């Protein structure tokens, strides 16, 4: 074994020990998923308030919100210039950037992170656009597994009805780039049908916990509270070691 390889091995072992030691004090990562109009944001806000009242430090992160990528995405969405691959890859960039700059640092310092949509949104939407799920998983890997995925389930018809009552969906949100339908609502109706199917497949693989989005808001909130109270951690060494290790290597965490 060369000196270089021995050093790398030693450094890997040190990082793994560091990750295992942090397991107890690290924060919980909770993801909220579901079709548009399912009430994720409302529930995330209610949960934030409840957790803060119990002296938890809470950090919230939203889909496509990284300060670095958001402007690039926004302008391209506005002029409708994105192909399916570009759309998917730019969301993967945004996600990776948020994982590295806000989600992992917050978890490492013991804060609870509430993700208003997580990578499953990208997987469901892009798979509904016709991209290969295997390639999508590659683009989003190494995956930082959430400890709990709360899925607000509703039928495509209900999602369409709720969206129709509030606003017209945007071009990409309505899937007009793939359906080719001029009417945003009609396009959304067709697109969300595929998205919900993809969500249903993902919910089995990634063990989502379902909450009926048709229930009263307070009932959903009570259920979410119960789920969070009962939630255990998905151990980093077993589930997310690669993602955390990579972040640690580039970070300025003492000991890394």
């Amino acid at each position, binding site marked *: 074994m060369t000196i270089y390889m021995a050093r790398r091995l030693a450094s890997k072992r040190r990082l793994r020990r560091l990750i295992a030691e942090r397991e107890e004090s690290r924060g919980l990562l909770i993801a909220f998923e579901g079709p548009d109009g399912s009430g994720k944001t409302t529930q995330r806000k209610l949960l934030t308030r409840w957790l803060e009242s119990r002296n938890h430090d809470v950090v919230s992160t939203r889909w496509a919100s*990284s*300060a*670095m990528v958001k*402007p*690039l995405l926004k302008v391209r969405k506005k002029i409708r210039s994105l*192909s399916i*691959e*570009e759309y998917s*890859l*730019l969301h*993967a*960039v945004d996600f*990776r*950037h948020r994982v*590295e*700059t806000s989600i992992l640092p917050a978890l490492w310092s013991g804060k609870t992170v509430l993700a208003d949509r997580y990578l499953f949104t990208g997987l469901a939407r892009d798979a509904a656009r016709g*991209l*290969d799920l*295997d*390639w999508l998983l*590659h*683009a989003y*890997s190494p995956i930082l597994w959430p400890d709990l995925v709360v899925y607000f389930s509703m039928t495509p018809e209900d999602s369409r009805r709720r969206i129709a009552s509030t606003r017209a969906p945007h071009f990409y949100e309505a899937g007009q780039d793939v359906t080719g339908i001029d009417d945003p609502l009609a396009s959304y109706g067709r697109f969300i049908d595929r998205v919900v199917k993809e969500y249903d497949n993902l919910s089995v693989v990634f063990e989502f916990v379902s909450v009926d989005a048709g229930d009263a808001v307070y009932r959903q909130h009570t259920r979410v509270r119960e789920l969070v109270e009962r939630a255990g951690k998905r151990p980093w060494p077993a589930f997310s070691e690669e993602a955390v290790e*990579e*972040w640690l*290597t*580039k*970070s*300025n965490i003492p000991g890394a």
Partner: protein
Amino acid sequence: MADQVKYPGRLIAVDGSRGKDVNAAAGAIAAALTRGGVACAVSRWDASGLFTELTAARRGDRHLSIRTLSLIYAADLAFRLRWEVRPVLESGGVVIAAPYVETVVAFGASSGLDEDWLRQLLRFAPRADLRGLALERKIDRPWKQRTDRGYAEYCATMLAASSPKGLSKKHRRAMVAALDRTRGRKIFDLTDKGVAGLARACRAVAETRRRAPTDSLEGGSRRSASRPRTGRR
């Protein structure tokens, strides 16, 4: 997801560790092809403007990892393929992609990313018909920190700003070694001789494709399938 379409056009990939060399080699190949009567298009790095806009947009936020940069490269490549590469290939023309897949794979692998991850990420890119390597001359220096020269220089600048563990000459040597590992019979070293060879090979491929249907009609001798389709003399 992988692009397995057989295009009538030809794709020449030019890779290298220094943006300036890659651009110069692409220009030299284009000139050699034009002299030989073959018109061609050149697709360069950051045609989508993502990297430039990122430099302008990145104010307080200084963190960028090599994985994020690789994903941005993939997005830029998807843009180049859609607007610059595939239209030319579909119309039967010649397009030079400088840089292409090997540059980002070699750079990422030399910075610690899994090579297989990079190849899987970029599997939507069609295979190049011919490949050239822009030769590295200043291997014993770290990259110049410039955001307008090329992918490697851009990454060096961004990573130096993001973390104290920036890129050194060790990384550069590793990238050159990774590029060297991809060398094969069909890869041309883009020296003056190599550029001429690649242009000749490109013209030969064009000639073969143009003549193939006529030959079969006239009952002329066709090249055997076992003979390697390379322009090397």
